[in-house]
């Protein structure tokens, strides 16, 4: 079994396919290498392939009009990305950038369509993968749209703060996310928003609360956004 087939059989897209099917499939797969920091995909460009990560890490993210970055997920070995826009023939829904030297396998849109028509098992696998992605994105939408995550993060910071002499808790972003009932990426975004407003300062391994009362107001539900933006919707 070639290394390529050995990898393909382990990923959810190709679970349960026979050795012959995997070997045929491997003929359609092409390799792409990306250095640390290299852009793999640009949001808005035609979606031409789905990518599978063999090694390395790829950041999948969207960028707002004012340049703010929202990380959708960090794709690790075995994960796929750019699946959603490939089949309907749209554009890349997000950008992708390698944050570590990466080896990727890619499957072109036309080849994927041809393989799908021949193999119902593959179609079922892809439906399962896409269903999982829909669930993941729905959770992200819920966090971004309806929950005041930043308020909960502000409250956690206030409740966990010490005097800098070893009296306070030490928390990872993952732990803050678990306490706030959200994703780690949303915690990172909330911390950045609080820092931009001057309520905290992140210095190396310290989060310094610089405006305790203002942070308390946010914890109590005060909106961080300028008043002109708060009528646009229920988001953060």
């Amino acid at each position, binding site marked *: 079994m070639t290394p390529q087939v050995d990898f393909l059989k382990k990923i959810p897209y190709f679970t349960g396919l026979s050795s012959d099917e995997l070997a045929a499939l491997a003929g359609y797969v092409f390799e792409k290498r990306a250095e*640390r920091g290299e852009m793999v995909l640009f949001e808005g460009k035609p979606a031409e392939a789905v990518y599978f990560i063999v*090694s*390395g*890490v790829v950041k999948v993210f969207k960028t707002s009009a004012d340049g703010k970055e929202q990380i959708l997920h*960090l794709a*690790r*070995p075995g994960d796929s990305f750019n699946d959603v826009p490939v089949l309907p023939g749209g554009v890349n829904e997000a950008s992708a950038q390698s*944050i*570590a*030297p990466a080896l990727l396998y890619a499957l072109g849109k036309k080849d994927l369509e041809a393989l799908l028509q021949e193999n119902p098992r593959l179609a079922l696998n892809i439906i399962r993968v896409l269903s999982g992605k829909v669930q993941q994105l729905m959770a992200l939408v819920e966090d971004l749209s309806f929950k005041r995550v930043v308020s909960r993060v502000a409250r956690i*910071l206030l409740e*966990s*703060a*010490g*005097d*800098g002499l070893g009296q*306070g*808790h*030490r*928390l*990872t*972003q*993952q*732990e803050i996310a678990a306490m706030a009932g959200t994703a*780690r990426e949303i915690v990172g975004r909330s911390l950045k928003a609080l820092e931009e407003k001057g309520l905290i*300062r*992140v210095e*190396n*391994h*310290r*989060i*310094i*609360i*610089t405006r*305790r009362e203002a942070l308390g107001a946010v914890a109590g539900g005060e909106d961080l956004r300028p008043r002109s933006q708060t009528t646009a919707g229920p988001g953060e």
Partner: protein
Amino acid sequence: MKEKPVIKSELCNGCGLCLSVCSCHSLTLVSGVICCSSASGECDWCTLCEAVCPTGAISCPFEIVFSDDP
């Protein structure tokens, strides 16, 4: 002395993802287990290693403190 990420070596599966995202070379792989390198540069606490670790073996906790600023 600068802080280093906290590593639970019993959880490390030696995949090396943390090593590959670390831009300040604070980590090293010894006998298949990740550890902080004493000879390397200082950790800039970007927390990417924690974000990519599939087993939760590495963490970058923040100390949360009030400022003395007026």
